[in-house]
């Protein structure tokens, strides 16, 4: 039987649900499970209901499930709001000081008092109790605490022990392997991918759900030798980054939809002036401020068309942390090589979820590298010499006058209004799109899963792939997903979808944006399953929705 367990930890904002969730995930990690963790919290700092669902399995998992096997309840809401997630055998571990429920209550206050520990360590008692109820050996608990809560591990462990000792194993989670994965969030995977791809500077203005990317890179700036800047607003963000790129740096920027709006003028400048730039956009529920801490997939067409005028762009929507890592590195490379903006389109579920990454089998990323001036001939920034791109030189290079320009310009970068030159330079820019599309044939731009001959196929993009893949497995369907959205992998997608009698798109928006994109490429979706309340689809929810749709 497949090993697959889910643990819910819930409490008030400010109760430390995030770190409790992280420790639980590490406990599962320590006994050999692949994990993923979903965090849900309202847009406020204290109070309100926060929860995490940690799932562990003997196979890679990218999505949490509705039903949970263990509940760690810091407050009563955790029981009452989530009762629908409990099954007969769900083990409940709770703080008996504030929660009345059947199951394993322990007095957190008593545990704290006896160890003379501060209130903030209360979670440790419950984690200890959970570990015990799940039959996780004390050694493992102790190792995880020492490793991941280095500050105050001792006293935390003493508190945890109080909880551990009050509870007996109800429903053991067995050790299933000896490998431990690295647990990282989607945003961390993006950050590491960017670094792998050569990142030299990250510029960003905080905006959920992209902020943790800024925080992570700021924290590790010295470690990775990068410059991290948080300027006055998103307009400054993109323009600074373009300055950095022009001067030879390799910048990325990050934001969410509202901040991206303010970057669109700079995006068009990047397109016209052919300045490499990577932009991470993590989607949340829109429009406008919307639900800032909830997920969504409603910015696809905006991202594909943002900025006045026409210019090629690379858009990739990774669906897993591993893909986020690999494609972020690729995006850095593509931007640098083709001198185009490259957009990594994520969403809250991916950005803020935590996933198991295999640290010894990191994806291999083929690098093209930038096309640099070799110093011969007079340097012309926009030379149209038949090659794919003009050669880049950076200011400070001896003998090169490097002129970039937002106006229509000639090969030297000087403004022109001459019709023939304008048309030629437009073709030169647009040509890059064709080359880029060709180059993409070497990458896994379309992911497929499930039986090739399934009559019904699901098509989706981004993080919703987790639910799609599992629902498809359950229902015997095929799941197909374009990872790269521009240039659109039309041919490969058509091949992947060949033979489908019924095509169902699954998206977290209200209009079916992928379905529209498919239609544009001659692929007709028969049914759309749309989810737009900010909550990500789980496999169970999707199975139900598919059954409603007659699958």
């Amino acid at each position, binding site marked *: 039987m497949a090993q697959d367990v889910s643990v819910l930890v819930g409490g008030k904002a400010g109760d430390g649900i995030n770190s409790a969730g992280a420790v639980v995930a590490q406990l599962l990690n320590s006994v050999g499970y692949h994990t993923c963790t979903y965090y849900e919290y309202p847009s406020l700092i204290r109070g309100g209901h926060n929860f995490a669902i940690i799932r562990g399995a003997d196979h890679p998992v990218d999505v949490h499930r509705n039903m949970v096997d263990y509940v760690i309840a810091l407050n009563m809401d955790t029981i009452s709001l989530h009762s629908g997630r409990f099954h007969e055998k769900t083990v409940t571990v709770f703080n008996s000081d504030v929660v009345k429920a059947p199951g394993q209550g322990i007095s957190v206050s008593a545990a704290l008092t006896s160890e003379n520990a501060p209130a903030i360590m209360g979670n440790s008692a419950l984690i200890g109790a959970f570990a015990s109820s799940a039959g996780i050996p004390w050694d493992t608990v102790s190792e995880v605490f020492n490793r991941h809560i280095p500050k105050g591990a001792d006293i935390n462990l003493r508190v945890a022990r109080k909880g551990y000792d009050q509870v007996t194993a109800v429903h053991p989670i067995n050790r299933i392997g000896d490998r431990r994965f690295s647990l990282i969030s989607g945003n961390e995977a993006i950050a590491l991918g960017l*670094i792998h791809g050569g990142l030299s500077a990250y510029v960003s203005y905080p905006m959920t759900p992209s902020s943790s990317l800024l925080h992570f890179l700021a924290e590790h700036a010295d470690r990775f030798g990068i*410059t991290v800047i948080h*300027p006055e607003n998103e307009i400054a963000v993109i*323009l600074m980054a373009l*300055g950095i790129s022009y001067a030879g740096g390799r*910048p990325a920027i990050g934001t969410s939809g509202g901040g991206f709006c303010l970057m669109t003028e700079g995006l068009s400048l990047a397109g016209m002036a052919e300045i490499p730039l990577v932009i991470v956009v993590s989607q949340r529920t829109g429009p406008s401020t919307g639900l800032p801490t909830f997920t969504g997939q409603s910015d696809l067409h905006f991202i594909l068309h943002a900025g006045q005028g026409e210019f090629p762009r690379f858009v990739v929507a990774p669906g897993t942390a591993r893909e986020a890592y690999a494609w972020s590195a690729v995006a850095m490379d593509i931007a640098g090589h083709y001198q185009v903006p490259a957009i990594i389109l994520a969403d809250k579920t991916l950005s803020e979820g935590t996933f198991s990454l295999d640290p010894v089998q990191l994806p291999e990323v083929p*690098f093209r590298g930038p096309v640099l001036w070799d110093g011969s001939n007079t340097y012309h920034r926009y030379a149209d010499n038949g090659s794919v791109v003009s050669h880049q030189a950076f200011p400070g290079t001896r003998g090169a006058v490097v002129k970039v*320009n937002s106006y229509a310009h000639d090969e030297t*970068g000087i*403004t022109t209004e001459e019709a023939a030159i304008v048309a030629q330079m437009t073709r030169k820019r647009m040509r890059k799109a064709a080359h880029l599309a060709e180059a993409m044939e070497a990458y896994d731009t379309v992911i497929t899963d499930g039986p090739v001959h399934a009559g019904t196929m699901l098509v989706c993009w981004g993080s919703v792939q987790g639910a799609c893949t599992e629902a498809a497995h359950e229902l015997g369907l095929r799941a197909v997903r374009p990872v790269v959205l521009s240039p659109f992998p039309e041919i490969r997608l058509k091949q992947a979808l060949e033979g489908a009698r019924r095509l169902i798109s699954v998206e977290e928006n209200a209009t079916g944006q992928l379905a529209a994109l498919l239609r544009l490429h001659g692929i007709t979706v028969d049914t759309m399953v749309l989810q737009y309340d900010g909550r990500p689809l789980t496999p169970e929810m999707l199975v139900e929705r598919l059954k409603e749709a007659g699958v």
Partner: protein
Amino acid sequence: MTGRHLITDAQNTWCPGCGNFSIQHTLKNVLTDLEQEGEDLDQIVLVSGIGCHAKIADYLDINSFYSIHGRAIPVASGIKLANRDLKVICCVGDGDAYAEGLDHLIFAAKRNIDITVIVHNNRVYGLTTGQYTPTSPHGFKGKSTPMGTLEYPLNPLELMLASGGTYIARGYTQKRDQLKSLIRGAIDHKGFAFVDVLQICATFFNMTSQYNPRVYPLQEYDRSDAGIACEKVREWDYNSDAPIALGLFYQRSALTFDEQFRHQSLHGKERQILIEEFLATRQ
């Protein structure tokens, strides 16, 4: 490249009598001087916004980033952050830097990033054919305010002083020698240098006859005294008939934003190892 021509082949399209010629000429002379003193002009970058003033990016044969309206300053900041060896000069308009992108100007001053900002302050939108800007006098009749503006101008020098600028000066396109020394001083200044240049717009706002009788060179005082500088800066508010002081109002030395970053350049393999090391902490 040395002894170079410094002027491109691009056709110059400023109106006859435009003050931009004076700024371009002055800047060219400053560059020539720098080169003669042994500076490598390949280390100079010019960043411009959009407007009549911005055409200087086409005309000067040096590295340039002809950016978008209002946004030259963050571009310049980025360039400096990426390569501290570059000298970065921003030529911006008053519509550009005082309206569309005012916040960037203030934050560049606040950060004391080591760039030079030269504002071609003709107190009108030239390229879009004559609308008021934040420094147009009260009652200015432009195309968007045919009955006269209802607002008083900003005093950009006062704003710069309030924002932490470390080199604050005002020049005038008809006082070229002084302008040259102000621009040169700005480039030599380590930190954020700001030169507001009263620039004649021959077509839409020719203030020659107002400026000429009123301008005078600032006398000596301790340039690092913010109190005196503030008083001097407030003497003329860009609206009244007061005398118009020209010169360097304020200068102090301070750590720059850019010099506080440690720059490390890691290569592929090093990055890989660091990533793996980091991932191990998450196991």
